[in-house]
């Protein structure tokens, strides 16, 4: 196995590493960087649990090669809150009881971040469409949809 050099930004931090070619992005995040907030569940990119943003677009980090983030910017769940303060999306998840076991939660939050950047005031249908690739086994989804819609309102109110 030949290691490949990777220079990337993860949650705003410059990272230069040499990684094995077949290492997945989620292995890189969890094992190399210790960012264990990103979880693995299906390994087939059909559950959304491992979602992270690469250049602000959501991808399944279980099926994305670490070498392929060279020159790109990665955002994980650890990079969502800032200055020790929960992001309004995170706060909305808490307030709406939009998590139980929490294993799917980082993936949903990353999708919500990407959605609200792309469509700041989504319709319920747009939220549903955007979240169709994220499985939650605990909640039944209603609370998650409400949290995302409420987060959109909170973000709008927060921005001038």
């Amino acid at each position, binding site marked *: 196995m030949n290691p490949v050099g990777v220079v990337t930004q993860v949650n705003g931090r410059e990272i230069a590493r040499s990684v094995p070619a077949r290492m997945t992005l989620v292995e890189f995040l969890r094992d190399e960087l210790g960012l264990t907030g990103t979880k693995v569940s*299906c390994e087939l990119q059909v559950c959304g649990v491992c979602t992270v943003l690469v250049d602000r677009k959501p991808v399944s980090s279980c099926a994305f090669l670490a070498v392929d983030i060279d020159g790109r910017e990665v955002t*994980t769940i650890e990079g969502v809150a800032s200055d020790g303060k929960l992001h309004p999306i995170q706060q909305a*998840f808490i307030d709406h*009881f939009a998590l*139980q076991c*929490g294993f799917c939660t980082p993936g949903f939050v990353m999708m919500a971040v990407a959605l609200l950047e792309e469509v700041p005031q989504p319709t319920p249908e747009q939220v549903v*469409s955007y979240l169709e690739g994220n499985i939650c086994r*605990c909640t039944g989804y209603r609370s998650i949809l409400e949290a995302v819609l409420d987060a959109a309102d909170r973000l709008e109110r927060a921005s001038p």
Partner: protein
Amino acid sequence: MTAPPSTTLTDHVTGTVNGIGESTVRPDGIPKLQGSFAYASDLETEGMLWAATVRSPHPHARIVDIDPGPALAIGGVHAVLTAEDVPGRLLFGLEHPDQPVLASDVVRYWGEPVAIVAAEDPETARIAAAAVTVEYVVLDPLVDPEEADTRDEVFRRIRIRRGDQDVRGSVVVEGVYEVGMQDQAPLGTEAGLAIPDGEGGVDLYATTQYVHADHSQIVASLDLTAEMVRSHPTGIGGAFGAREDVNLHIHLCMLALYTRRPVKQVYQRSESFTGHVHRHPARLRYRHEADEDGRLVRVEADVLIDGGAYASTTSAVLGNACYFAVGPYKCDNVNVDGVGVRTNNPPCGAMRGFGAVQVCFAHEAQMDRLAAALDMDPLELRRRNALATGDALATTGQRIDTPLPTREVIDSLVAMPMPEDDDSEDPLRLPGGTGLTTERRDVRRGVGYAFGIKNLGFSEGSDDYAQARVLLSPQGAIVETAAIEVGQGLVTVVGQIARSALGIGNVEVRHIDTSRIGSAGSTSASRQTQLTGGAVLAAATALRDRVLTEFAGEYLDDDGVWRDGELVVPYAELASGGWEETTTFRHPPTEEPDENGQGTLHADFAVAGHRAIVDVDVGLGLVRVVRIDTAQDVGKALNPESVRGQIEGGILQGVGLAMMEELIVEGGVIRNPTFTDYLLPTVLDAPDVEALLIEQEGSWGPHGAKGVGEPPTISSTAAVAAAIREATGLALPRVPIRPEHVALEGGV
């Protein structure tokens, strides 16, 4: 040895003191939302090795030889262990030990563990596992449950005979029903970390619902004293029954003790599907007899569930299936013959609803058939037979002495407003979803009702208890428990109970290991709010009373003890006094059944009802579950939003069983052990849910609370099936209902 980063899970909760009935938010929400909450799969420590499992590729075979040589020759491989290396009892099992920790002579199901490997990294471990050479002689697998019954390959038979064998009804309906093998599919796979203590003992941090049951099985198989093994609660990514049984627990401890290194393992998804038990598939034969007025006079049921290769909880699941075979209805003459068979199919055990789900699908279909035969409104039929407090349970004859609002559940569900007709052509609101298969013109709407009942807590004479400790520390009050939080919200409700009993707002819940507290029992059977909640209430109340007595105080709060409007003992002083109270809470005792299956077998019951509204594309057999309305008997909702979360999530698992969730087992082999082919409902498959909580206090749970976790899953499946029957006129005697079951029988 270095301890993992989080040896004690703590959840710091603050909130209103008299918060019972308020929707306090989860204390573990913040770390879970920031990615800092440590699940079992996130734990690590220095010098850690990784484990992998060698599993049988055959459902039934004799092991001729296991050669670890090729695996041991791989660089970085530290151990390959087989059955010969199990220091103590070879067998484990939740109810009785019959399952080998590692198969020694015969493998009895596809995926059965044969050897375990520890290596420097997970990939090397997996390569090494693949390199272990196992020579098998393949044997014929027994995979037909009916044949197993005939051959008397059984874990348990139950024979219920109640009432007069000669009483017959004038209106008779019969049916045969089938339920497929559902999987719990928690999103976190099995994971654990075992750390040797350097003195011959071991600490285990692993996914579980029941640390004390793990502990006793580990101790037996390792041949160690109880003190030498400590089983620790850790972060769990869902459970739903999949984590009651031991899987990687003993393996990791063996490898850690052998290598003298910490050993970690995380199952991949396909291994998870073989690594835990599933919901029992069932075949159910029913005969209902009623008089002309629709009163049930006789119910006969044959209940056959396939336990697979090993016992797990099959005996208890069969008990539930038989005892709740009639549903929440009165009937004086009941025969039930139940059998849980042993086959070479995957082992089955606990899943949310635990036997009540399978029979509910059948008894509710029967009630609808009976209503049709009587030409009676199916809801009126159910009202006439509704089981109430003071009645006898139809199967066991147990007099029900806690509130059982079946009638209220029926009436309030019926009274809930129906949704408007939908004329939307938005594909997201149509069967087939994004596949664009269906237009509104292709759709028929159906409405179906179903009602279910289940026991709460352990039954049939189990000594069911939970221990909890409450203490006053300088940081605030602390609740200590070994009860497992799997996501359901125990940690929230226990904090609420402690705060309200103590009067102290600042409460921390600590999940501590088996050496530091007695068992809380399993996080299953909808029992923790009642049992651990009961223990916390009792401990907190006793502690407060002792403190107030000691200082002649009137009340206690975060500032300390008060009397006549004055603070007489500041909290800091109180906190240095070593105040603590440990309480063991038991629910009312239950009995074992007599030879006719009669007796007071259960401590408490809950009923729930579901109304499903479905849109069916009859031509293609595609279904969208539009909405599910539900009324549920909850005793007292200690945290209404958490209860709602249980209801909505439980309903979706019921919808999953009705529509898509099934492990396809052919010749003993699981054909779909991935999330590509074992389909879980997505957000597009999730119905709107309206929930009504029926509160009738009087149960022995804290503040009258009942367990709420399982009822949502029991009758939701049956309600969806009933709604599809109404839309199509088809019999649909099996779940999951697949497109071909609707389209090919219904025609275009």
